[in-house]
């Protein structure tokens, strides 16, 4: 084991490169939160790799004083898979935006999640294409006006969390860019989880989609419009902590109720079970005005990682044929001497 000679700080994870995001971009807050979290999770710069695709979020590796690979659009999970298969000891983070991860890279994200490669995958979802100057993205809501949709977009958006759950992800969490208390907790949980950890971060694009998450992020509405789920705890929200989620009687859906009204007691409120995939799906599906947006670890149910299984197989093969000799390989099967 590597012994860390001295306690590292956030500064040890910051590069000397000038950060080039727009002033006020939500990415700054995420960068700061992660740089702060790295020492707390015992990360070491030399064993950490940040891999990204293309887009605003994908500039992230340049600002982390670790190993970093800024690759091509949408393919970061595939590069990261190759890195983990070569050196599973490395702590690999994948960073991308909603376009990078869910549009051009949707295929790689799906397969990386189902294989359960041990990665922390961060999606900075701002529901817009920033670096190409403001076109609608696969997470944009219907009606989004953009240079390529002057009359408003007509496509139904994809939900990152539902996509991940449908792909077989074993860890799905959500947070918001500016919540410097919640975000580090989510980084830690994602990091702790062995396997593919998907963390969706609702991130504000100040230039092309400013305020798109205000309906649940704005301080004036946050407590009523967000529910922070925690394993083993009742799913309570609201300024008065008297709102809660429960199953609607007779139908398979969640409703928001007020404790103390209509005979509702705390015991009626659903307790979050992060190992319950069905519950995770219900929580990820809450996108109506009547229900709050679920943040936190929606699902965490570990399984063996891809690279561990691959390496186990290789170890088995090596154990069965310990004298792997290349000259023998070339002479396997029928040979004859002239």
């Amino acid at each position, binding site marked *: 084991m590597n012994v860390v000679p001295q306690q590292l700080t956030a500064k040890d994870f910051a590069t000397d490169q000038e950060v080039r995001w727009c002033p006020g971009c939500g990415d700054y807050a995420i960068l700061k939160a992660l740089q702060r979290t790295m020492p707390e999770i015992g990360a070491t710069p030399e*064993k950490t790799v940040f*891999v990204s695709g293309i887009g605003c979020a994908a500039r992230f590796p340049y600002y982390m004083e670790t190993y970093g690979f800024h690759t091509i659009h949408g*393919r970061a999970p*595939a*590069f*990261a898979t*190759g890195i983990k298969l070569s050196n599973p000891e490395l702590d690999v983070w994948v960073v991308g935006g909603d376009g990078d991860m869910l549009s051009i890279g949707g295929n790689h994200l799906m397969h990386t999640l189902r294989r359960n490669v041990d990665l922390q995958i961060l999606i900075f979802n701002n529901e817009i294409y920033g670096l190409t100057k403001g076109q609608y993205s696969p997470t944009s809501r219907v009606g989004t006006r953009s240079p390529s949709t002057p009359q408003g977009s007509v496509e139904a958006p994809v939900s990152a969390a539902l996509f991940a759950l449908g792909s077989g992800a074993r860890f799905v969490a959500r947070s918001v860019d500016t919540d410097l208390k919640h975000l580090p907790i989510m980084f830690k949980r994602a990091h702790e989880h062995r396997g593919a950890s998907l963390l969706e971060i609702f991130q504000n694009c100040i230039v092309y989609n400013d305020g798109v998450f205000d309906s649940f992020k704005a301080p004036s509405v946050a407590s009523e419009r967000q529910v922070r789920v925690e394993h083993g705890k009742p799913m309570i929200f609201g300024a008065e902590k008297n709102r809660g989620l429960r199953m609607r009687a007779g139908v398979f859906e969640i409703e928001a109720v007020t404790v103390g009204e209509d005979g509702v007691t705390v015991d009626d409120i659903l307790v979050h079970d992060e190992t319950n995939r069905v519950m995770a799906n219900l929580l990820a599906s809450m996108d109506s005005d009547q229900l709050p947006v679920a943040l936190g670890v929606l699902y965490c149910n570990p399984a063996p990682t891809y690279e561990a299984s691959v390496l186990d197989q290789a170890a088995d093969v090596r154990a069965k044929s310990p004298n792997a000799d290349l000259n023998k390989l070339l002479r396997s099967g029928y040979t004859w001497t002239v």
Partner: protein
Amino acid sequence: MASTAAVAEIRTPREARESVVVRFAGDSGDGMQLTGGQFTQAAALAGNDLATFPDFPAEIRAPTGTTFGVSSFQINFGGRRIKTSGDAIDVLVAMNPAALKVELGNVRDGGVIIVDVGSFSDRNVKRAGFASNPLEDKTLNAYRVIEIDVSALTMEAVKESGLGKKDALRCKNLWTLGLVYWMYARDRQPTVDWLNKKFAKQSGLATANIAALNAGHAFGETAEMEGDVPTYSVAAAKIEPGEYRTVSGGEALAWGLVVGAHKAGLKIMFGSYPITPASPILHILARLKQYGVVTFQAEDEIAAVCSAIGASFAGHLGITSSSGPGIALKGEAIGLAISTELPLIVVNSQRAGPSTGLPTKTEQSDLYQAVYGRNADAPLVVLASRSPSDCFETAVEVVRLATKYMTPVMLLTDGYIANAAEPWLIPDVDDVAPFGVKFRTEVEGFHPFHRDEKTLARNWAIPGTPGLEHRIGGIEKDYDSGHISYDATNHQRMTDTRKAKIDGIANDIPEQAVEQGETSGDIAVVGWGSTYGPIDRAVSNVRAEGHAVSHIHLRHIWPLPRNLGSLLASFKTVLVPEMNTGQLVTVLRAEYLVPAEKVSKVSGQPFKIAEIESAIRARLGA
């Protein structure tokens, strides 16, 4: 339980032949590739030199009896050096009318045709597209036809095995193999051994197949028919002493990569997506985990190459393999490997045609794609293998170049090379010189694009190394620091440097040798890849008549060997036979301003010797 193969008693003198071309042809499900493989082994064990040509449809099990479902295996074997799979067929084994229909045009006049008359029902004859039964009309008058009811005789031979009719008939190929073994006095025992091993857990199938093999052989011996089955002797070839095996291009290439990686001191991470005809390399490497090989069947071609590049970033040897359409998808990622200057090996088992084209047929039409096929100025190294066994050496060489120069290297083979087999004098791995890779560990003075002054290769620092944390990516990098840079003069300098690095490799590869003939003369026949055999034979044929014709065969396509320009300039005519519409010829004209002429063939079939010979003669006016 298995009967043994007695040494054949020769009653009539066998007709001696210097070399023979045999082609087994039948339905996709008739086991023709398997039959060919066994016959190849028998020929090799008899000391013949040989070359093979497996030719099969893209469909796994095309409808039976159709011409498009015909699967064939051709072998040319002899007592002299064999360099091609043969122009014209001496003995055709046609398991059904469709096989006869497809292959008839390739049989030389007077050639032997063995047909299974049991399969020549009116329905099958019609289905194959014959207007009337070719066995009854004049279609086969020019040939020596041996009509045998192989179906019935096989059923008879295996009746005691208790197999159902369908399974029993599947032994037909072994029956014909037994007959052909008799014709050439070949030892059945290795095939008997192989069947016993293959069907170790289904002894009924082993017994039945061996019974069929022996029955076919016995049929030849006793010749229960009008007229004899002709018998031949083909002497052993004079070949270099040593230990031999047969090897396919796929095997030689995979093993070469493993040996190359071993010599570099690296482990292989092979990322690939299945595609015809490249998949055998994935299959072979997947079984070599004990040699430090990790294989990854990716979700698509792009993920395959990206995983390989990620592996190289992390300190493994990243390799990906595909065929033309897949290489097209990998283009952007290959550009990233060029820009970040990481080692990467890209194997292209070329196939025919644009788009899906003809997946199982052979062509050399991805040369432009290899040399030029990326956005922007994106030079890389390109090599081409000339034969199945040559894949071993070229594979070792691509590992050396990729790691020494921190660059992607593309290795071109084709469907013919990938599947064909030939005898191989097995090299001693210890004789291959090592070229160990040294990762950067020294912190002082490090930046990721710090270069070796001589090779211009950047230093390779891998994650996990303390103090060398760095970021790389596709954005242009500052020459002196490796940080991202949008500076105009810096981009010029980096572009020039990337080009100079690849160009400089010309000084680290052998000068172009002349395969056959003088270093100047009337005609230089310049080839690359799998056209080696037919060009070689065609040139030797015209040289035997005293013509000043030479054969030059390129292994290094990019950069080209440093003396190639002056070498070509010393010939009056430069002739370039290629299985494309003229790609190398364009490159040679562009690079050296030589009036090179093309000989083009894109039928999905390899060149015949005669085709190249006649192109040479046309230029000689002979």
